[in-house]
């Protein structure tokens, strides 16, 4: 993991002191709310429905046990004992007090964390594949590149006031597990013409009111030019992106207004004119950052563990959990373990302080002191010896953290919705709970197979509904919460935006509608066909018929 140097420590401490002063000036009346608002947002502090909400950056979703324990302590001491992991791999606290924020930020700084650039029209937390440095299909670890981008973009003087927020994701694996096509810039590490690694660069993807799948601006960018090329993209966006209409200010609108070819032309022209060596990272600095990400020492172990095999044979609950939540690792005898935050009945992505403490302990005991947050709002221990998996499972069960639903229907992405969010039009949490209840039986989810169900409580799409195989969008129709259902979205390779299937449903009708959609899929699917494959083959007609009949 990256460790702060003296500069980083001093920088974050200075920032804490600066914001402490700003909070004091707000409380004393030297700043009014209009003056204070942009300052607090620059520090990740929102005023939401019930209270202040603090968004804490978890760079590319990577935490040490010490950091996770500190987050647990902060939530327990200054909030209500829980937090919400987000699709940006961050953590949100829902009930912090303004007067406590300086203490919270100081406690974060103690463990090399902060809230800088978790809000505002700047480059937000760069997200990554949660199985980085562990996945069998990985070409290269994306985390060092995330860290390089983080350092470069933090308080970047040219890009601190972009037309709108800016999100970047990086995947270094064959399978896209970071939804790169739905980002302002999506980076895929790929092999180049001479066998060397570089980046395939996508631009202009995004969710929100007008969703787009990112388009390829460059099929191969040599790695050494990452910063200069990204800088040129951001410069063109900064110059030409719309500032007159907040709904049309994201880069996706610019890319699609100009067309990808014209946009590329502008970027390439800027890049040609750039003094690249002044922008790109010097080789020794790159090596210094890379050195922090050396994978843990994992001596190969027997690929098959007899005790684990016996447990799987004799304990169906363990076997089911293992099947879905224990993933192959590139070192024999190890696995990546998904700790589901999607127990039926609970808010997707929420974790109590006790749960965070437990996971921190288990990370120390079994996980080489590294835990990841994935964008689907679960926690991941990337490096666990297979022989330790039963003990890990046994420790998770009493804490209700051993739900075996990774990538199944119950593994829903869900934004906070109208229960917390000032922007929301409708609730999403209770809908998620009702759906989870409907599909609680693991054998039902098993029958369905992998299925991504994503839900947002408003058109801003924090719950990624556009990319759900099944997407649910809450809207307000004349004071009543109504839920639009989209089908066929896909966040992975061959990414797609879901299609609205028909008129919306009232809240109480949503679980039945999902049931109907699932039944229609099962009736129509060919052997081994995923939901997405069936949808792409049969189209909307059978789903419309099942949902709306002759209506």
């Amino acid at each position, binding site marked *: 993991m990256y460790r702060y140097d003296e500069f980083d420590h001093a920088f974050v401490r200075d920032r804490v002191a600066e914001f402490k002063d700003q909070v004091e000036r707000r409380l004393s009346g030297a700043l009014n709310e209009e003056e204070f608002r942009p300052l607090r947002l620059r520090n990740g502090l929102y005023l939401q429905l019930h209270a202040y909400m603090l968004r804490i950056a978890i760079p590319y979703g990577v935490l040490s046990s010490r950091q996770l324990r500190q987050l647990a302590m902060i939530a327990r001491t200054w909030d209500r004992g829980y937090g919400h992991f987000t699709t940006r791999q961050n953590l949100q606290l*829902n009930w912090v007090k303004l007067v406590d924020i300086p203490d919270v930020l100081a406690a974060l700084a103690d463990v090399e964390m902060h809230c800088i650039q978790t809000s505002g029209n700047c480059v937000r937390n760069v997200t990554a594949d949660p199985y980085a440095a562990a996945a069998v299909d990985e070409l290269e670890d994306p985390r060092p590149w995330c860290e390089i981008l983080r350092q470069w973009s933090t308080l970047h003087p040219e890009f601190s006031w972009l037309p709108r927020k800016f999100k970047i994701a990086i995947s270094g694996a064959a399978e896209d597990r970071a939804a790169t096509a739905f980002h302002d810039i999506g980076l895929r590490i790929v092999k180049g013409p001479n066998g060397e690694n570089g980046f395939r660069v996508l631009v202009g993807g995004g969710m929100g009111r007008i969703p787009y799948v990112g388009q390829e601006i460059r099929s191969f960018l040599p790695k050494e030019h990452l910063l200069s090329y990204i800088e040129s993209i951001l410069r063109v966006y900064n110059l030409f992106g719309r500032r007159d209409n907040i709904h049309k200010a994201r880069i996706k609108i610019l890319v699609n207004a100009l067309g990808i070819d014209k946009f590329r032309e502008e970027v390439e022209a800027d890049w040609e004119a750039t003094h690249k060596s002044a922008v790109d990272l010097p080789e020794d600095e790159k090596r210094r950052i890379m050195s922090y990400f050396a994978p843990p020492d994992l001596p190969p172990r027997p690929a098959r563990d007899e005790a684990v095999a016996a447990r799987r044979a004799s304990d169906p609950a363990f076997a089911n959990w293992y099947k879905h939540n224990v993933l192959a690792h590139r070192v024999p005898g190890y696995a990546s373990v998904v700790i589901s935050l999607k127990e039926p009945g609970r808010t997707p992505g929420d974790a109590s302080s006790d749960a965070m403490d437990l996971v921190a302990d288990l990370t120390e005991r079994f996980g080489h002191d590294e835990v990841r947050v994935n964008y689907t709002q679960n926690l991941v221990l990337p490096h666990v010896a297979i022989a330790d998996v039963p003990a890990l499972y046994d420790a998770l069960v009493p804490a209700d953290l051993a739900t075996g639903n990774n990538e199944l229907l119950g593994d829903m992405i869900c934004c906070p919705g109208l229960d917390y969010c000032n922007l929301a039009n409708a609730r999403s949490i209770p809908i998620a709970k009702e759906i989870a209840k409907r599909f609680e039986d693991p054998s039902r989810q098993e029958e369905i197979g992998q299925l991504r169900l994503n839900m947002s409580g408003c058109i801003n799409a924090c719950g990624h509904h556009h990319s759900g195989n099944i997407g649910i969008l809450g809207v307000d129709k004349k004071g009543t919460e109504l839920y639009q259902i989209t089908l066929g979205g896909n966040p992975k390779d061959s990414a797609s935006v879901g299609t609205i299937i028909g008129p919306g449903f009232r809240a109480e009708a949503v679980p039945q509608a999902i049931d109907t959609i699932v039944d229609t899929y099962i009736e129509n699917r060919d052997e081994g066909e995923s939901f997405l494959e069936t949808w792409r083959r049969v189209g909307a007609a059978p789903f419309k018929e099942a949902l709306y009949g002759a209506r």
Partner: protein
Amino acid sequence: MAKPNVITANRLTDGVVVYLAAEGQWTEAIANAQVAEGEEETKALETIAENAVREREVVGVYPMPVALVDGAVDPLSVRERIRAAHRTTLTKDWYDVPL
């Protein structure tokens, strides 16, 4: 006829949802909110609330329409029912604001 209103805001120091009560006090309990009948009474309460913004007691003041059910204040929108409930979503199986 105009609906009755109460004045709501968030408390500056902790952001908690509050309602303007009698004598310029702010209360977390909507049951204790002062109800304005008609435009003139609402305006009078808004003036008190704007002063509380200047005095740094609260932020984000606005009037919200309510119904009076047997004398009790009932928020009309789902959003305001949720705000009035001050509730976390941590507890398993919780949900008593009806769907």
